[in-house]
């Protein structure tokens, strides 16, 4: 009878050990999976930050260039206005004289169809 108990005990012990090993393996798998997922998430996050940074850089560059363009357009416009002012000032007299000449140059005429 003692040998039977021993055998059964050994079996039981072996079963228990096997069950432990199996559950250990399962837990390890789950842990590994979770770890892999987390790492992947971290990588995605990193990539997204990178893209965001690039984008902000791009935007900043555009805004900056806009200021330059605005300044150059303004300078151009002011130059044109100045040049116009000078030109006008030099020809103004002449134009006014001509206008007044025409105002005073009156020829009373009868309409050609009058009967």
């Amino acid at each position, binding site marked *: 009878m003692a040998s039977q108990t021993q055998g059964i005990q050994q079996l039981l012990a072996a079963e228990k050990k096997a069950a432990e090993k199996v559950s250990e393996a399962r837990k390890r798998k789950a842990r590994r999976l979770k770890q892999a997922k987390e790492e992947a998430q971290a990588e995605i996050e990193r990539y997204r930050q990178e*893209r*965001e940074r*690039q*984008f902000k850089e*791009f*935007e900043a560059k*555009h805004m900056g*260039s*806009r200021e330059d*363009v*605005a300044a150059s*357009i*303004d300078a*151009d*416009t002011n130059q*044109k*206005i100045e040049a*116009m*002012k000078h*030109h*006008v000032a030099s*020809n*103004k007299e*002449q*134009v*006014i004289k001509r*206008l*007044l000449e*025409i*105002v*005073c140059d*009156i*020829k*009373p*005429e*009868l*309409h050609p169809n*009058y009967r």
Partner: protein
Amino acid sequence: MEYYERKEKQVELQKKIQQSNMLNAARLRVLKAREDHVASLLEEAKRRLGDIVKDDNRYKKLLEVLMSQALLQILEANVIVRCRQADVPLVEDVLPACVQTVKEKTGKDVNIKIDPDNYLSPTAGGGVELLAQKGRIKISNTLETRLDMIARQMVPEIRTSLFGQNTNRRFTD
């Protein structure tokens, strides 16, 4: 990923829109400056009209011609003349000559009266206004109306002499 691409495109587009808007605003400023120059020139010309009027002899001849022209336009037998209060003696002086001119050209007589109730404002340039048919027909031949009319017709010429030929224009006939 596409989110960022879209945003980048949006930024580009906005930049182009803003640039175009700025260019437009700049062009409008230049045009407005032009407009102001022309307006100030016409103002100055109007003021100078006053100087012409001061020379009595010249002004008298001018009045005569203005009257004759207006009479030949109105072609009525009974006419009322409106002028500045200060010009009344001058107008009375030139009246007979005008009537004579009209008679020569049309062979008809004109009956002219000076309006004693309404005068042209003394700050106006000078000249006459003719009324006929109980004030229903009116011909305004003042120096100011003449200047306005002439200025309107001469705007292209004024423009080219003040601002130079237009480089974008291809046909001038």
